[in-house]
């Protein structure tokens, strides 16, 4: 048996929604993280809870990209596809590398499955795949699992349900992973169902042993640990990390975290995660709709809480009136948008970056606020922490943009120590001092007094108000002054957030690539590849989108051309172009509900470099 050393690999687990592929993928990534690899994952599941079994629309996939090098994307085409049925093969075969490995569950390719997957009568997809050069390994997992569990006391259907563990074991063998972490996981999960536990453990091992004994594979792979910075790591999804960032910010600021949300894919997990932490005093409120969620948060912000609400596009639409109120009240509020495919209901389970316009411009009146974006699952913690810091210290609503890919994806995360987190100091009213609600400091920030505090009673609302006193005012000059002051306050935030900087590549590049949000990894990989190849390329990635960070113009003007890749039809692009008319921006769009492949960006940069040279 040959063992091939690899720097990185991409595996795609795919099967019916009922086949437990998400769990399988998650287990693989967990184990892989434990073994010291860097990694990135991408779950891809249908919009239906359980679309008709066996059909293509019912396929659920989980992609994991891991390596001994830094990993920033869920990878491009897969090295290995595990297809539990014909539909999974049909859906994903084109996403496998030429001559890649395809492991299939034979039991998922009977006539009925072929029919459900939409293959025409007599089609032989496995033979065709082989003919196209894929290395196809057929394993009758269904049967083997049934046999392994014949004495388990479980019924046939129940037994068969564990076939994903067989697949997992097999792939563990193939990629030389430990069984330990998954064994421990199963023990925790089924601690009160000993039969099921034993069955799962047995099947997991059967898969592993099958690899060892059956001699069906020509290779095994070895991928050593990555040279990640030293420290303690854990796996984290973006939504989890975001939730933890909120909790940490509240605790560091000495405030109660008040979270109000209405369920919506792909943001609901933030609500779920926060609901767990009642022992820390975290308040999570499932409101009757998004309007109630944002306005309840405003009530809590008035009361002195760290008020947060999260949603996705359609819910964001409903919150805009409330956000306008928060802007007028000048209260701290964090609004998280875990973006999904739009417009309207769109593609609820797919990822997209198309709510940036809405975040920056989507309110009535002159209603500026701070817009920030998280760039990867492991970045969500810090992004949330920073959003809370800005909201609390500047008394301003902050929209934090995430997306489905970041929210659901997982990565190893070198979590910080509590002590290392920067302090958060909101401009609190001190009892005994005089209070005028709209008196401001040098950064235009007003002070925050809470009901219950003696001597600071005040009334605020959505009508225009006199600066200083906060009394309602319809006065012309005051209105203009207030509109400009609210804008200036937001602009001022840029002074407190790190300058724009070149993350990777040349200081005076021919092509600068600027992005925001979840495109970070794909851009980074693309730029890195080109830098290694000697190209004059560099990357800037924005945390702060409104206002733009200090120093950005300088960086942009140094490049010959600036590429702006986005998972939309161009939203950051016009905002940049309007602000920096002299820069030669080149948009790059993808709107397919899927993240960029690094290669897609790399190619465009290369082409752009070529045209610049010929000019």
């Amino acid at each position, binding site marked *: 048996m040959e063992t091939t050393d690899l720097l990185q690999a991409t595996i795609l687990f795919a099967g019916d929604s009922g086949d437990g592929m998400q769990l399988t993928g998650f287990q693989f990534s967990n184990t892989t993280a434990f073994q010291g690899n860097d990694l990135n994952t991408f779950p891809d599941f249908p919009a239906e809870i359980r679309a008709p079994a066996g059909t293509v629309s019912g396929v659920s996939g989980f992609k994991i990209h891991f390596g001994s090098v830094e990993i920033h994307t869920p990878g491009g085409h897969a090295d290995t596809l595990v297809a539990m049925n014909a539909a999974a093969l049909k859906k994903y075969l084109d996403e496998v590398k030429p001559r890649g490995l395809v492991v299939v569950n034979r039991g998922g390719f009977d006539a009925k499955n072929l029919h459900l997957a939409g293959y025409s009568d007599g089609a032989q997809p496995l033979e065709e795949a082989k003919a196209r050069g894929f290395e196809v390994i057929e394993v009758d997992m269904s049967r083997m699992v049934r046999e392994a569990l014949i004495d388990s006391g479980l019924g046939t259907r129940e037994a068969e349900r564990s076939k994903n563990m067989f697949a997992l074991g097999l792939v563990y063998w193939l990629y030389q992973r430990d069984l330990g972490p998954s064994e421990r996981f199963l023990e925790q999960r089924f601690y009160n169902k000993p039969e099921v536990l034993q069955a799962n453990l047995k099947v997991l091992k059967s898969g592993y042993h099958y690899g060892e004994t059956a001699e069906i594979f020509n290779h095994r792979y070895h991928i050593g640990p990555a040279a990640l910075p030293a420290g*303690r*790591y854990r796996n984290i999804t973006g939504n989890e990390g975001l939730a933890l960032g909120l909790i*940490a910010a509240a605790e560091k600021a000495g405030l109660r975290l008040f979270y109000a949300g209405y369920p919506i894919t792909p943001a609901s997990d933030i609500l779920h995660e926060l609901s767990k932490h009642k022992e820390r005093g975290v308040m999570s409120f499932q409101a009757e709709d998004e*309007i*109630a969620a944002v306005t309840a948060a405003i009530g809590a912000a008035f009361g002195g809480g760290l008020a947060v609400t999260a949603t996705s596009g359609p819910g964001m639409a409903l919150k805009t009136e409330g956000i306008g109120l928060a802007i007028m009240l000048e209260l701290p509020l964090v609004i998280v948008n875990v973006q999904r495919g739009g417009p309207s209901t769109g593609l609820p389970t797919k990822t997209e970056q198309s709510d940036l316009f809405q975040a920056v411009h989507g309110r009535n009146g002159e209603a500026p606020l701070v817009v920030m974006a998280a760039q990867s699952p492991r970045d969500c913690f810090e992004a949330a922490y920073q959003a809370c810091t800005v909201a609390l210290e500047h008394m301003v609503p902050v929209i934090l943009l995430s997306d489905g890919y970041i929210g659901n994806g997982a990565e190893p995360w070198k979590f910080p120590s509590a002590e290392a987190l920067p302090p958060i100091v909101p401009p609190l009213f001190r009892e005994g001092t005089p209070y005028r609600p709209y008196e401001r400091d040098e950064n235009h920030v007003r002070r925050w007094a809470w*009901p219950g505090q003696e001597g600071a009673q005040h009334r605020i609302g959505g009508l225009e108000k006199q600066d200083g006193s906060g009394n309602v005012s319809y006065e012309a000059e005051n209105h203009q002054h207030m509109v400009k002051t609210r804008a200036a306050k937001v602009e001022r935030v840029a002074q407190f957030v790190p300058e724009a900087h070149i993350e990777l590549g040349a200081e005076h590049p021919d092509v600068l690539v600027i992005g925001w949000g979840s495109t970070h990894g794909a851009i980074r990989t693309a730029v890195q590849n080109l830098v290694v190849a000697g190209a004059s390329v560099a990357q800037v990635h924005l945390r702060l989108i409104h206002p733009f960070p200090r120093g950005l113009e300088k960086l942009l003007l140094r490049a010959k051309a600036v590429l702006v890749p986005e998972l939309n039809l161009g939203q950051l692009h016009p905002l940049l172009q309007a602000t920096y008319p002299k820069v030669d921006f080149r948009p790059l769009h993808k709107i397919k509900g899927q993240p960029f492949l690094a290669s897609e960006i790399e190619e465009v940069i290369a082409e752009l470099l070529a045209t610049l040279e010929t000019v």
Partner: protein
Amino acid sequence: MNPLTAPDFTSDQDVRWCPGCGDYSILKQVQTILPELGRSPSETVFVSGIGCSSRFPYYLNTYGLHGIHGRATSIASGLKMLRPELSVWVITGDGDGLSIGGNQLIHLLRRNLDLQILLFNNEIYGLTKGQFSPTSELGKHTKSSPWGSIDHPFNPLALALGADATFVARGLDRDPVHLRGVLKAAAAHRGSSLVEIYQNCNVFNDGAFEPYSDKKLRDLSRLMLESGQPLRYGAEGEWGIVLDGLQPKVVSMADYSLNDLWIHQPEDRTKAWILSRFFDEPIGENALPRPFGMLYAEDRPRYEELLHGQLNAARDARPKQTLDELLAGHNTWTLEG
């Protein structure tokens, strides 16, 4: 410390309702009872939506939030959850609370947070200058219904009962003494108290409640509810209400004795329902009078109590991790440099 008085609860802002507006009386009664509730201005918060009535908080020297249209209820809910110790009041109108704000209102009522909701019902949109509202009567001619409204109006108290409200009452701007009593009962109730207040908009809907305020008419049109007392009305109490099966009937006290009458039991939800349905114009021989006072009151756990109970129980049941432990989670690994 000197006991608090109305001026302690009065802000320095000019009151800006139309002269003669019923809102003035309601403001006055609220300012009068607030000092009696034992809460200081700084512990008291008024939250309103948008409408003439919703300018109310500006006139009180308490904390106040003039929100957006229809959402005072949810703003107040968030505040009360976070700060259950505050005395929280919601000010809303028939448009604000029942039209655009209907959803937030019914959900607040079912959750039963301990706060007072004063619904200023003038059966019109005042601030936007006179369109019909969800409580305007069928056939009403307004700017937006020049041929007469075709919208069947809500019965606000029936709606509240349907939404499982725990306190439902009705008051009238022009009966200050009674209104103060209702307001105090609402404040005393532990849970969401819905107080519908008939409020005259003398500019766009003058006289809507004249049958209940006019000295000549009101004796026969108002039924003043008192817990444990028989339902009786008329200038000399000459009329009574009996229940004939499930049917309420007006009877003359010449023919009936007090013992025959329906006894008001605000804890009885079915009776409250029937009372809320005394809703036709109180005109004509057998017409039922309009009930005022507390129709229904039920003691049910308050949302914020359950919430904080759960938070406390969780704190006691689970050892609180340090923030470092939380960030680490359950599965970590360490990489050497």
